[in-house]
């Protein structure tokens, strides 16, 4: 025991060069783009299909979401019971959801139990029936989920600050209403399905331990989907329009804790400032050793967690800072957060902060490489968030050249406490 020096940590080795494996991408004759990436030790496959058209294009959160959820509840050939039973019996996971501009359909399965899964997936994407009894049940669930969400202070403050940073008319800022859910009918679902589920314009991502046969079956499946060239849904962008800096309060009755959400405008993903600002936002509150976490959680004990992140979407970007706290700490928490934000420009990152930040970001990028599924998830966000090609390598290159002065300069430009939009629940 005496010979072991515990006062000196083991030497740290630089993470070095990382290369993001490139999927093989081709366009099928019906206009579908297919990207494939094979790898991993486990006999598992995942197919994710992005169909253009989501909440913004439908002008409703409920319609595309219910459409996605109800796809497996009945087709022209089989009942919902049969379809869900088939997926469950084969240990497969089917899921579908709608985001801002896309509807994503996913199937995950064990290679040993793949028989008949893709033909069934084709059937439900081609001829869903949206039975009324299932729709009623799903609407009840959606109403219940909405009520539960509305009871959470974090949801209320996040929606309120979204109005300030995105503009009150942005679909992401608008609180969903029970009437939006109640308005959905089998007819409106059919109409939306016809508009949005067009193989021409969709992008499929196949990953896992892939055999030639699996790829061939996936191609045949994608070719079986209806395709209408020229009628791909047009994207309805809604660029952010920020309100002037201000603080708003939201009344949430009987809450024992309060929630604070703060936001700052940010440049688009295509801007040369985006990546440096992402690094600065991580240094501020993106990991355990960041300034907000160290000061507000670890030194002051005001909250279980506080974080900051840079969000970049097709419609705009913003820096978001959020924490739940006791009512008696709200003012102090905001004051400390403003102090930490201001410090990003005025107090350069110490050598240790800089090293921790660089290593954390490198580790974050390495985690992307963990499995073929995580790599494909990364590529999927290229499509859904409009990430420019070469983003991974650009981050690595900029990270290597990053200095405290770069962080200060970018923070002085974007991380100004006087620009904060703040929402507090009371």
């Amino acid at each position, binding site marked *: *025991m005496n010979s*072991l020096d*515990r006062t000196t*940590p*083991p030497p*740290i*080795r630089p*993470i070095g060069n*990382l290369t993001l494996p490139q999927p093989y991408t081709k366009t099928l004759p019906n206009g579908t783009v297919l990207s494939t990436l094979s*790898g991993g030790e486990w*006999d*598992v496959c995942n197919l994710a299909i992005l169909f253009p058209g989501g909440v913004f294009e439908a002008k409703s959160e409920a319609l595309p979401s219910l459409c996605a959820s109800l796809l*497996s509840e009945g087709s022209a050939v089989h009942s*919902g*019971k049969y379809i*869900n*039973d088939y*997926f*469950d*019996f*084969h*240990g*497969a*996971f089917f899921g579908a959801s709608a985001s801002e501009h896309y509807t994503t359909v996913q199937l*995950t*399965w*064990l290679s040993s*139990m793949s028989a008949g899964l893709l033909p069934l997936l084709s059937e439900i994407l081609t001829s869903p029936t949206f039975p009324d009894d*299932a729709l009623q049940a799903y609407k009840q*669930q959606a109403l*219940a989920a909405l*009520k*539960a969400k509305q*009871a*959470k202070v974090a949801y209320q403050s996040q929606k309120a600050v979204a109005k300030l940073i995105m503009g009150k008319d942005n679909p992401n800022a608008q609180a969903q209403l029970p009437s939006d859910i109640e308005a959905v009918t089998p007819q409106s679902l059919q109409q939306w399905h016809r508009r949005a589920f067009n193989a021409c314009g969709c992008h499929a991502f196949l990953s896992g331990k892939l055999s030639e046969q699996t790829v061939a079956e996936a191609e045949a499946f994608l070719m079986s989907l209806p395709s209408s060239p020229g009628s791909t849904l047009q994207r309805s962008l809604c660029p952010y329009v920020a309100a002037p800096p201000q603080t708003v309060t939201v009344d949430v*009755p*009987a*809450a*024992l*804790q309060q929630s604070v959400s703060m936001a700052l405008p940010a440049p688009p993903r295509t801007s040369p400032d985006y990546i440096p600002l992402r690094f600065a936002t991580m240094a501020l509150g993106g*990991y*355990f*050793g960041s300034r907000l976490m160290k000061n507000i959680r*670890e*030194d*002051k*004990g*005001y909250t*279980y967690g506080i974080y900051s992140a840079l969000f970049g979407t097709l419609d705009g970007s913003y820096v978001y800072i959020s924490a739940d706290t006791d009512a008696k700490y709200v003012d102090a928490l905001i004051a400390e957060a403003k102090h930490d934000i201001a410090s990003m420009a005025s107090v350069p990152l110490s050598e240790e902060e800089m090293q*921790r930040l660089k*290593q*954390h970001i*490198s*580790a974050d990028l*390495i*985690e992307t*490489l*963990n*499995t073929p*599924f995580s790599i494909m998830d990364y590529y999927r966000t290229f499509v859904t968030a409009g990430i420019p090609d070469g983003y991974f390598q650009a981050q690595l290159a900029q990270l290597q050249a990053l200095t405290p002065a770069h962080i200060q300069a970018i923070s002085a430009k974007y991380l100004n406490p006087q620009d904060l939009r703040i929402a507090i629940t009371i």
Partner: protein
Amino acid sequence: MVKYESFTLDNGLRLVCNYDASSALAVVNVLYNTGARDEHPQLTGIAHLFEHLMFGGSVHVPEFDAVLELAGGQSNAATSADFTYFYDQLPVQNVETAFYLESDRMLSLSFSDKALQVQRAVVVEEFKQTCLNRPYGKVMHTLRPLIYDAAHPYSWPVIGKEPAHIEGVTQQNVKDWFASHYAPNNAILSVAGGIEPSRALELARKWFGPIPARSIAPRPVMVGDDAWPTQEKRVVVKDNVPQTAIYIAYRMPPYGEEGYDAADAITDILSAGKSTRLFQRLMLATDIFASADAFITASEHSGLLIFTARLNESSDRAIDRAVEMLKAEARQLAVPGNVTQYELDRAKNKFESVFTLENTNLVNLARTLAIAQYHGEDINSTVPRYRRLTLADIARTAQRIFIDHAPAIAIFKNE
């Protein structure tokens, strides 16, 4: 098939290693054989608070996360009634840093007063955020005392009975907790990812080998572990909740005993997927249920099999009807022939699929390996064991849980 190798150091520390040459990452997991069930009934929540304090500096490392982050690592931890585990994920070339850090905090903490003061406040905020201020957040505080004897260590939740217990933890309590539970002979070190087992063994010997084995506190007697209730208990909690919710908890066999896997399968037959009984018969076929689910608490001693449901109605009549429908779903599983071979096979396929998918993630794999090692089991035997379940096993277990014994029921409704 998961490949792994196991070793035991002279001080009693067990090591289990999986090697994936293609991975640029490594995960180091330390599982301590201690949890909330080791707490004194008047000092609940200390196991979880201690988990937080393990990040507050050790004897040679003032800031755990500073060193880990410099190595490009991330960490987290969790506490259950039975176990506490800590994991570090980092680039494989810096894996030694995790051995260094985990061994130093196993050797001794710094026991700083500032860390205790801050983490007590952080955990109290967590208590508020996850229990007091969240709809249905008090469910386990309600159900557990109803179905366990007050002296049974599963009668309180991991977060603690009340914030006052956490606020009352002293530095001496913390030191005693460490001395009596944190030791190499009470832990399992598991490693997954791109580190070869021979290298993992070398690093374990280097960093953990010199830590002396320590005397471990005997685990508390599980008072009334076999005394499952035969009288139903029911409470109505009026709270600020968006929908009326029902929780029906039955006692179930401990891990490793006859009936444990069957109870797990019963919940899969009931609710693993949209084709299952609760979804098809309750959610789709009636207007009352907004959701319905069943799960087990996966405990080392007699744990819980819990039904949960949210209702679209809140009248007493609707609540009574929903409770009866859920209990009827439970009871009929005991009738021979009620569950079909097809349903059981479907549950088995789903189990294999979930097990495989979960363990593609290195953090999950390291934890699964550690728990299998604790149980003295081969991780590759888990799925085959589940696959050996028969319809008779299901009916016999359902009879014991649902017919021979009675549940505790908690109804959460709006004030």
